[in-house]
C-alpha cells in the first residue's frame, strides 16, 4: 500500500492532518481526554477568548432544529490571561496545532488579546469577527468590509503570529469581506460561523432561546458553507479553512474540493464526540480508494460546470 500524506499547511503552520476541532464546541480540550489523546486531531481551535472573563447569556442557550441546532452561548470564557496561565501549557503538551480564537468589543480589545497571546507559544490566532451572540463586537465587525479591515489591520499591527480571520455567513457578499481581511494582512480565512436563526415554543409563545435568536449550525447549514468556501477560495490567494455542518468524511472531502486546505468540525462533535476521528479515518479511506497520495492534491480541485 502506498503511504498516505495527510499533512497540510495553513498560514505557514503545518498540521499533521486537516481535521481541526472548531471553536466553541471543544472548550480547551480538557473534556475529551477521557476518550482519546488530543494529538490525534490536526489541531484545536479553542473556545473564543475575550480580554476579561465573560459569563455568557441567560439560558436556555440551545434549541434543536431540523438537521441542526441553535446556540446562544455568548462567548462564555475565563478570559485570555486564565487561558494563557492555565489551559495553554497543557494543550501545547497534549495537542498538535493550538489555535486561539479571539473576540472583542473594539479593535483595541482584539489587539490587546493578540498582544498577550503573541508572547506565548500558541500556534495561530483565529480572529472571530463573526459571533452572532453578543451585543457589541463579534459579528458587528464582520458584516462590513470596513469593520473586517479595521480589526484585521489593528491585530496585524501588534502580532507576528499567523492570523486567520473567521467570517460570518450573515452578509450579502462574503467574498468582499474575505478580500478586505486579506488586504490588511490576514494569512488565512476560516468560514462559516453560524447563521442567525430562531425558534418559538408555540405553547408558551416564547422563543426557545432566552436571547430570542441564535446561531444555526449542523448538517442543515453545510450546503451554504460549502458554497461560501468555494466562493471565497476563488476570490482570495490566502489559505481557506472550511467549516459549517461537516458531519462525515465525505462532507470534509467536499469542503476540500471546494477549496479548503483544512476543515473544522463543530456541531458533529456535540452529536458524537468521536466524530473527528471517524472523519480522519474516512478521509484516509477515501484517499486509499481513489489512490490519492497527498490530501493537499484535492484542495480546490472541484471541476465546475
Amino acid at each position, binding site marked *: 500500500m502506498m503511504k498516505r500524506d495527510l499533512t497540510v499547511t495553513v498560514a505557514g503552520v503545518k498540521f499533521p492532518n486537516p481535521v481541526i476541532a472548531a471553536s*466553541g*464546541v*471543544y*472548550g480547551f480540550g*480538557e*473534556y*475529551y481526554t*477521557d*476518550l482519546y489523546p488530543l494529538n490525534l486531531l490536526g489541531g484545536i481551535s479553542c*473556545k473564543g477568548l475575550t480580554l476579561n472573563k465573560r*459569563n*455568557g447569556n441567560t*439560558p*436556555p*442557550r*440551545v*434549541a*434543536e*432544529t431540523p*438537521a*441542526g*441546532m441553535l*446556540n446562544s*452561548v455568548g462567548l*462564555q470564557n475565563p478570559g485570555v490571561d486564565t487561558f494563557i496561565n492555565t489551559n495553554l501549557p497543557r494543550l501545547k503538551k497534549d495537542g498538535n496545532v493550538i489555535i486561539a480564537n479571539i473576540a472583542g468589543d473594539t479593535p483595541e480589545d482584539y489587539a490587546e488579546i493578540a498582544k498577550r497571546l503573541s508572547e506565548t507559544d500558541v500556534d495561530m490566532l483565529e480572529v472571530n469577527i463573526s459571533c452572532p451572540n453578543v451585543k457589541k463586537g463579534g459579528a458587528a465587525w464582520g458584516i462590513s468590509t470596513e469593520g473586517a479591515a479595521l480589526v484585521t489591520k489593528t491585530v496585524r499591527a501588534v502580532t507576528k503570529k499567523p492570523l486567520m480571520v473567521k467570517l460570518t455567513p450573515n452578509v450579502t457578499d462574503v467574498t468582499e469581506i474575505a478580500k478586505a481581511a486579506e488586504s490588511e494582512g490576514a494569512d488565512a480565512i476560516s468560514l462559516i460561523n453560524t447563521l442567525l436563526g430562531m425558534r418559538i415554543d408555540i405553547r408558551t409563545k416564547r422563543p426557545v432561546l432566552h436571547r430570542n435568536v441564535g446561531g444555526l449550525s*449542523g*448538517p442543515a447549514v453545510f450546503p451554504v458553507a460549502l458554497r461560501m468556501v468555494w466562493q471565497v477560495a476563488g476570490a482570495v490567494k490566502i489559505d481557506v479553512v472550511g467549516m459549517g455542518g461537516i458531519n462525515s468524511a465525505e462532507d470534509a472531502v467536499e469542503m476540500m474540493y471546494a477549496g479548503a486546505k483544512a476543515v473544522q468540525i463543530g*456541531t458533529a*462533535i*456535540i*452529536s*458524537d*464526540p*468521536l466524530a473527528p476521528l471517524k472523519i480522519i479515518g474516512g478521509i484516509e479511506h477515501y484517499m486509499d480508494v481513489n489512490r490519492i497520495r497527498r490530501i493537499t492534491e484535492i484542495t480546490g480541485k472541484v471541476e465546475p460546470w
Partner: protein
Amino acid sequence: MPYRCGSYHVIEKTAISAGVYSYAILCPEVAVDARPGQFVHIKVEGFTLRRPVSICDIDHKNGSIRIVFEIRGHGTAKLADANVGDNIDMIAPLGNGFTLPDGIAPDRRVITVGGGIGVAPLLGAAKAFRENATAILGFRSYDKIILANDFKQSDVHVITCTDDGSVGLKGTVTTPLEAELAKNDTDMVYACGPQPMLAAIVRICEKAGVKCEVSLEQRMGCGVGACAVCACGITRQDKEYMLMVCKDGPVFKGEEVLL
C-alpha cells in the same frame, strides 16, 4: 471519573405508565463507575442533540444500569422505539451524582423528594439507605405514579402525594416534607423535579437547617462540559458563577442554586 462513549444492549424494557419507559442497559464498563444522580447522554438516530437521561438504578453485580424516561417530544418518542436486543449509543456516566455518606446512624435518616419523572434518579440514592430513607413521591394523579413499588421493595418508607388526591395525600410534596423534617432526625434531603418544587424544597430545608441537594434539568449540548450551553447560575461564597449543569451538576447543593 472517566466516562465512556459506546453502543450498549437493551436487556429489559418495560412501559411503567403511559409514555414512561424503563430500560435496563448492559454496560459493565459504565456501571462500574456510575453513581446515583449521574446521567447518560443518548444519541437518537436522526437528531443532532443527544438526550440526557438520569440513571435510575445501578446493578453492579449484573453490570447494568436502569434508566427511566418520559416521552416529551420526537426524540424521546424515537428513543422509546428501542427494544430488547437493540443498541443504545450513549456517553456515560456523566456529571456529579448525589453525595452519599458512607454510613448513617441507625436513628438518623435521609429524605428523597421527587416530582413526576424526577423521582427516577432518587431511587438509586434512596436504596443506598434502605430503611433509613423516606421517599416522598409527588404525581399529578394516580395514573402517573411510577416506581413507588421499587422504593418499597428496597425497604424505603414511601409517602405518595397526588395533586388531585386520587392516591395518597392530596397536594404537593412540601406538606409531608415539612412534617417529616419536624421530627428532627433528618441528615439530608435529596430532590429532583420541576423548578418551582425545587425552589420550595430548598426554602423549607434552609428553614429547618437540613442539608439539601437538588438535581437540575437544562437543555444540553455536548453533555461533558465543553460547549457551554446548559448553563445555570450558582452562588458560592457570595460570588455568582455560570456553571454547567452537565459537568458541574446535575446535582448541586440546594443553597447555592439560583432558582
